């Protein structure tokens, strides 16, 4: 059989996959003898992203891979396909999730220390059930409390390339400062650089504005 163009194979795979594909997974679609260069795949991805300008779909880079997703600008219409309203999450759940995301691995007790209230078992259950969070070990202290961390699925769900993409935490002003000391601002302890770049490949910005 004559091999179809690289770009068409990549496109079909991304659209059929139902989740992000890594570069390695894309390479794995090809047999030993026909395997393209990584650069060629990246080129194809770039071309596709450009093709999708002004279209209902776009290519996004999430959780270490690439996925085709419905563009946010048409999401309200597409959402009508499903009867269910997108679930809204309680503040308690989001705060717990945020603590796990920024402070992982973290125990339930540590989450409670910051929030000042008990974390309900239901919240942990929902987070694990959604596979956003999982137990990655136990702290070696009395009671051996479970340590929670976020998963790849968490990144996928919130459209993040990696934890570094999390919005930066606000800074803490040191209380010592009003005692006359110097104003020392503690560095935000979590994810490293604030990443201003959107993870949508190319041209998405232009097209979001097209009427």
């Amino acid at each position, binding site marked *: 059989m004559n091999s179809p163009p690289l770009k068409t194979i990549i496109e079909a795979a991304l659209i*059929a996959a*139902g989740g992000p594909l890594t570069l390695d997974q894309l390479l794995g679609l090809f047999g030993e003898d026909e395997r393209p260069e990584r650069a060629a795949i990246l080129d194809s991805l770039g071309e596709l992203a450009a093709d999708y300008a002004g279209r209902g779909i776009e290519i996004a880079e999430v959780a270490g891979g690439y996925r085709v*997703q*419905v563009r946010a600008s048409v*999401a309200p219409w597409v959402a009508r396909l499903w009867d269910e309203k997108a679930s809204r999450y309680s503040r308690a759940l989001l705060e717990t999730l945020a603590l796990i995301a920024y402070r992982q691995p973290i125990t339930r007790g540590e989450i409670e220390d910051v929030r000042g*209230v*008990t974390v309900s078992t239901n919240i942990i259950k929902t987070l694990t059930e959604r596979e956003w969070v999982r137990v990655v070990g136990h702290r070696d202290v009395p009671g051996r409390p479970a340590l929670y961390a976020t998963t790849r699925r968490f990144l996928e769900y919130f459209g993040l390339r990696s934890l570094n993409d999390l919005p930066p935490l606000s800074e803490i002003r040191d209380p010592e400062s009003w005692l006359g000391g110097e104003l020392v601002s503690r560095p935000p302890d979590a994810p490293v650089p604030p990443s201003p770049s959107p993870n949508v490949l190319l041209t998405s910005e232009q097209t979001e504005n097209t009427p």
Partner: protein
Amino acid sequence: MNALSEAEATAAVEPDASAALGVQQELPLAIVQGMPFLTLPQDLYIPPDALEVFLETFEGPLDLLLYLIRRQNLDILDIPIARITDQYMEYVELMRELRLELAAEYLLMAAMLAEIKSRMLLPRPQVDAEEGADPRADLIRRLQEYERFKQAAADLDALPRLERDHFVVEAGVPPGCIQRRPPDVDLREVLLALREVLARAELFSSHRVEKEPLSLRERMSQVLERLHGGGFARLTDLFDPSEGRPGVVVTFLALLELIKSSVLELVQSESFAPIHVKLRERASPEFHEQPAA
């Protein structure tokens, strides 16, 4: 009156929104046609439900304290502890009056505030920086720490996410092109899952569950399978004498169990006539939805 109570309700339900008005000192209770109302009209009736909703929007004592501080535009690093303590206590009292379930954390915080307040009244030795640390320092640190994660939670919520802002696409592949291989499962994985779910449900303590022999459960399924086509089966046909006495007993127990749970019924047309068993009533269409092959 109508408009007023409506505005009041909105202000009550959304503490953040009212804080955002940026009003110094006292927060207006409501804004009606641009005019702030600072005091409640005497005859205004606030439905207790609205207050409950209002109070329940706090995620704990730190959240409530933050709200009290923010709505008055106070600097978190220099909170007037006496004033905040009084206001905090008012809310706690209110919650008590409404008999809201008042989490112990709220009372703990009340005690802590009272302690800080009393320590603030004591003269502070100027000499030693360590000793003379502001009694509010720890509380301020916790408030800030909580606030940044409160913000982080809001940021997280604002991220474009699946099922709301984006949808995963999943185009089909023409039939016949793909044979999806279903995942392999190790029985031990299933058992571990069971162990976990039982531990969660604390079913281990139930004697009923532990003693129930699995063969009974299996037999119940087998009996149902036999009766699956509908119609009657002779009771005696369900027993297999070659299984010996234990087998017959298990079948009998399975039948009793199924009859007790209203899945089967026994029918006997007259005394001493053969006893028949049938599934109770024709089932919904789902019943026929058996795997084809």
